[in-house]
C-alpha cells in the first residue's frame, strides 16, 4: 500500500513542479473543495427567493449580486459546481472503467471479439452527442441521471479505443512475452502488468475530458434539457443571464467564469499529468 | 603541421544538471590528418557522443564548453558564428549515424532526399539526379537509377546504411564522422560496409573519424586509434602500437576482453571488474585507478597527463613515467 501512495505522491510532486500543473492543481483543488463543502460555504440558500433584492449588482452582502428571483448568485455558483461535478465525475469515471475493460478485452482477446467491440464503439461514435442527448432526454425526461447516462455512453468508445491501442502495443512487448514465457495467467498479465501501464494514459484523458463534460452539462441545462430548475447549474445560470443581460451582466459572469476556470484547471492538470505519468519522460527528470 | 585537418585541443565539456556538473569530456586532445582514418574506442559513457556533438556543435542546451578548442583547418569551430557552422555541416564535415532505420525521412523517396541535400549546388535537376545515382552506384546499390524512386522502407538495413554513406559523401567532405555505423548490422553486412568505406575513402581522400566499440572493425579499418575512458583520452597512437603494444592498463584489459582476441577456447572470459566512476562525482587522481590491478600510490594523488611515449604514441598512465625514469 505504501508503494502506491508514494507513487501518487511522486505524481503530485511532479505536477506541482510544473507552473501550469500547479495552477491546474490549485484551480481543481479549489473547485473540489467548494463542491464538497458547498453546504457550509454558501452564505444564502441557493434556491431561496427574495424578490425584494432581485437583480442586484455585487455587494458585501451578495458577492456576485442576485438574479431575477433575488437568489444569491455566488451561492448558486458554488452549488452549481457541486452539480457539475456530480455529473462529470461519475460520467467520466464510469465511461473510463467500462471503456478500459472493453478496450483491454478487444486488445487482448480473440480477433472476432475485437472486431465486434470495434463495431460497437464505432456505432456509438457515429451518433452526434447533442442529437443523442436530445433523443434520450425526449425519451426519459431531463434529469441529472440522464445527463450522466448520455455523457457516459458517448465517451465509452474514446476510452475503449485508447485502451485497446495501448493493449495491442503492450501485448507484443517483450515484458509481456516474458510473463507469458513464465506461464503467467491472462488475469495476471492484464491486471498486474498491463493495467498499470494503461491507466495512466486514460487518467490523463479523463482529466482532459472533465471540462468537456461540464460544458456539455452546461449546454444541456442552457437548452433547458439538463438538470431541472430550481437546482442551480452553471448552464442554467448562463441561460438566465443570457435573457437578462440587458438588466445585469453579473449572471453571465457567474455562470461563465466557473466554466472557463474549470476547463482551464482540468486541462492544465491533464497536460501536466501526461508529462509526469509517462515513465520515459519521468526518467529524464 | 599543415596537413592537420581537425585538432581537438584540451577540450573540456560539462553538462549542467540538477545533480551538479557532469564532466562529460576532460582535457581531450588528439588530431586527425587529411585523408586519415582515426578510430575512437571506448565503452558506454566514455564521452564519444559528446565528442561528436561538440565537433558539429549540435549539443544539448545544458552543454557548457569549459575549455579548449576544436580547430578545423586551423579555425576554432567553437568560436564560429552559427551560420558559418551551418555551412560547414554536411559540406565539409558529414556524419553517418548508428541506426540506418531512423536516418531517412520515411515519406520522401531516396532520390528526393538525395536531391535535397544538394541544395548548395548550382547544378540543374538532371545533373543532381545523375550525381545521386552515381553515388548510389558507388556504394554498391545495384540499378541506382531505378532505386532513386523508392522509399526508405523498400530498402534493407544494410542498404539504408549504404545510402546514408552515399548521402554523407555526396558533398565530398574533408571529414566524415561515422558514429558506430555498423553496430546495428549483421557481420556480413558490416564487412561489406567497411570495405566500401575503405574504397571510397581512398577515392575521395577524405578523413574519417570512426567511432566503434568493435575492436575488430577498428583494427581492420583505422590508421590511428584514440582510446577513451569516462570522458578522457587514456591512450592514442598508431593502430599497430595500440593493439600490439598498449601502454595504458585500460587499453590492455579492453583488448584482452575481446573474445576474438583469445585464440584458444576459453570457458572463463576476461573482464574488467568494478564500475565506471560517476561523472558528477569523479575521484581524484587517475580515473581508472579503482579498476586497475597495477595501480601505485601515485595514481591516487595525481592525474596522470597524456604524455608522449614516442612519435605518435601517447598514454596517460604513471607506470610509463616510472619506466621512463628508471
Amino acid at each position, binding site marked *: 500500500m505504501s508503494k502506491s501512495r508514494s507513487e501518487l505522491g511522486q505524481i503530485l510532486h511532479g505536477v506541482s513542479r510544473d507552473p501550469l500543473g500547479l495552477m491546474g492543481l490549485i484551480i481543481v483543488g479549489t473547485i473540489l473543495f467548494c463542491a464538497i463543502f458547498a453546504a457550509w460555504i454558501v452564505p444564502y440558500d441557493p434556491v431561496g427567493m427574495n424578490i425584494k433584492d432581485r437583480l442586484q449588482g455585487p455587494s458585501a452582502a451578495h458577492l456576485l449580486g442576485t438574479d431575477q428571483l433575488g437568489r444569491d448568485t455566488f451561492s448558486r455558483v458554488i452549488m452549481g459546481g457541486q452539480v457539475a461535478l456530480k455529473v462529470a465525475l461519475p460520467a467520466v469515471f464510469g465511461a473510463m472503467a467500462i471503456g478500459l475493460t472493453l478496450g483491454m478485452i478487444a486488445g487482448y482477446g480473440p480477433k472476432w471479439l475485437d472486431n465486434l467491440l470495434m463495431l460497437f464503439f464505432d456505432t456509438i461514435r457515429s451518433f452526434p452527442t447533442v442529437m443523442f442527448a436530445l433523443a434520450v432526454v425526449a425519451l426519459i425526461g431531463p434529469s441529472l441521471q440522464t445527463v450522466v447516462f448520455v455523457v457516459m455512453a458517448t465517451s465509452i468508445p474514446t476510452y475503449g479505443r485508447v485502451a485497446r491501442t495501448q493493449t495491442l502495443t503492450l501485448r507484443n512487448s517483450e515484458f509481456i512475452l516474458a510473463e507469458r514465457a513464465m*506461464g503467467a495467467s491472462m488475469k495476471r498479465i492484464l491486471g498486474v502488468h498491463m493495467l498499470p501501464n494503461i491507466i495512466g494514459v486514460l487518467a490523463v484523458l479523463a482529466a482532459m475530458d472533465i471540462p468537456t463534460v461540464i460544458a456539455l452539462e452546461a449546454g444541456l441545462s442552457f437548452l433547458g434539457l439538463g438538470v431541472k430548475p430550481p437546482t442551480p447549474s452553471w448552464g442554467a445560470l448562463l441561460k438566465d443571464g443570457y435573457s437578462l443581460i440587458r438588466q445585469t451582466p453579473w449572471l453571465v459572469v457567474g455562470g461563465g467564469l466557473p466554466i472557463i476556470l474549470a476547463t482551464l484547471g482540468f486541462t492544465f492538470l491533464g497536460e501536466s499529468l501526461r508529462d509526469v505519468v509517462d515513465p520515459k519522460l519521468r526518467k529524464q527528470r | 603541421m599543415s596537413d592537420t585537418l581537425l585538432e581537438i585541443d584540451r577540450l573540456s565539456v560539462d553538462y549542467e544538471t540538477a545533480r551538479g556538473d557532469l564532466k562529460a569530456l576532460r582535457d581531450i586532445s588528439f588530431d586527425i590528418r587529411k585523408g586519415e582514418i582515426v578510430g575512437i574506442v571506448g565503452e558506454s559513457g566514455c564521452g564519444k557522443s559528446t565528442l561528436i556533438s561538440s565537433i558539429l556543435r549540435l549539443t544539448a542546451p545544458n552543454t557548457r564548453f569549459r575549455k579548449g578548442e576544436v580547430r578545423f583547418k586551423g579555425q576554432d569551430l567553437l568560436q564560429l558564428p552559427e551560420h558559418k557552422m551551418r555551412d560547414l555541416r554536411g559540406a565539409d564535415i558529414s556524419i553517418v549515424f548508428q541506426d540506418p532505420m531512423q536516418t531517412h525521412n520515411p515519406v520522401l523517396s531516396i532520390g528526393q532526399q538525395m536531391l535535397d541535400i544538394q541544395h548548395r549546388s548550382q547544378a540543374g535537376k538532371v545533373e543532381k539526379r545523375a550525381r545521386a545515382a552515381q553515388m548510389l552506384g558507388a556504394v554498391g546499390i545495384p540499378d541506382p537509377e531505378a532505386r532513386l524512386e523508392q522509399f526508405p522502407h523498400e530498402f534493407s538495413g544494410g542498404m539504408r546504411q549504404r545510402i546514408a554513406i552515399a548521402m554523407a559523401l555526396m558533398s565530398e567532405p574533408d571529414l566524415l564522422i561515422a558514429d558506430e555505423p555498423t553496430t546495428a548490422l549483421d557481420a*556480413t553486412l558490416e564487412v561489406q560496409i567497411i570495405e566500401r568505406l575503405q574504397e571510397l575513402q581512398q577515392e575521395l581522400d577524405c578523413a574519417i573519424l570512426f567511432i566503434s566499440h568493435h575492436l575488430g572493425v577498428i583494427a581492420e579499418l583505422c590508421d590511428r586509434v584514440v582510446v577513451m575512458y569516462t570522458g578522457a583520452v587514456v591512450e592514442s597512437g598508431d593502430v599497430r602500437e595500440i593493439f600490439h603494444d598498449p601502454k595504458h592498463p585500460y587499453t590492455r584489459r579492453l583488448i584482452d576482453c575481446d573474445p576474438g582476441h583469445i585464440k584458444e577456447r576459453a570457458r572463463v572470459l576476461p573482464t574488467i571488474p568494478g564500475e565506471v566512476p560517476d561523472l558528477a562525482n569523479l575521484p581524484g587522481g587517475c580515473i581508472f585507478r579503482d579498476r586497475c590491478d597495477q595501480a601505485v600510490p601515485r595514481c591516487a594523488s595525481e592525474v596522470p597527463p597524456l604524455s608522449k611515449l614516442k612519435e605518435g604514441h601517447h598514454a596517460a598512465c604513471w607506470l610509463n613515467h616510472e619506466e621512463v625514469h628508471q
Partner: protein
Amino acid sequence: MTLLDVKDLQTSYGQVNVLAGVNFAVEAGETYALVGESGSGKTTVIRAIAGLAPAQGGSVKFDGKEIRGASEREMRPLRKDIAMMFQDPIGSLSPRLTIGSLITEPYRIQGMKDRDMQAEAKRLLEMVNLPAHFADRYPYQLSGGQARRVGVARALALEPKLILADEPTAGLDVSVQGELLNLLNDLRERLGLAMVIITHNLNVVRHVADRMGIMYLGRLVEEGSTEAIFDNPRHPYTRCLLSANPEPDPDARLERIALKGEPPSLLKRPSGCEFRERCPFAQDFCIQTPSWEVDNGHGLRCLAPLSQ
C-alpha cells in the same frame, strides 16, 4: 540425455514461411548456439519452442514429451523447466514493478506464495552479483548490464533445466559481456542446465557453445560441434559468416569470402538451393533442392559442400 529435440520445425505467418525446417538437439547441461543474419528466423525458433510463436509442423520434444502445439494449460507445468531471456534487457522487465518483485514473479506465477519473497529476492540478486538494495529499484533505473543480470536472476529463479536466451550480450560493452557470459557459464555448470543462445557474435559462440547451428532463410544449413564448424565449415554460407568476422589485430588479414548481395525476401524464396544466388561456390546442379543430411553428428544442407 537429450533434453530438447527439434525436428523439421515449421512456422508460417499467413503465406510467409518463417521457419522451413529446423533440426537440432540439445543435451542436458550443454550450450547450443544458433547463429545467422537478421531475419533468418533464430528468434522464431526459440519462441516456437517455448510456445510463444506458432509452429504448424514438425516436432519439439522436451524431456521426451512432445510440446509442439501444446495448449497454455499443458505448457504451464513445463514453464518451470524452460526459462527465457529476451533481447531487450530493460524492455523485457515489466516497467512498473520493482526489481525485487520482478525476480520473484516466477514464484508467484507458479503459486509458491508461501516462500519468503524478500529472502528469495536477496538470494537471487546475490547469485547474479547485484547488491541487495537493487530489489527496490525500477527497471528504468538500471544500466543495460544490470538489467541483463536481473533477467538472468529471473530466468534462474525456478531452477530450470533449459534456458532459451535471445542475444544475451546484445548492446553490452566488451568488459561487461565477459562478466555476463562467465556468470551464465558458471551457473550452467553449478546448476547443470542447458542453454540455447542466439547470437550473431561468432567470437562469443566459439568460447561458450558446445554445439552450434547456422540458419539461413528459416532453415538450418549446417549444424555440429562448435570446434568442427570453426575448424572445417562445410557449408559455403558458414564459411562466409566465419570469414566476415573482423579480428582485433591490425595485421590479421583474413582471406575474406565476399558474399554477394543481400538475403532474399521470405516472400520470394529462390528455387533450388536458396543460397545459390549469393554463393561464391555455386555449381550448375545447385538448382536442385538440397536435403538435410546428417553424417556423424554433423548436419548439412548443401549439394556442393566444401571439402573436409
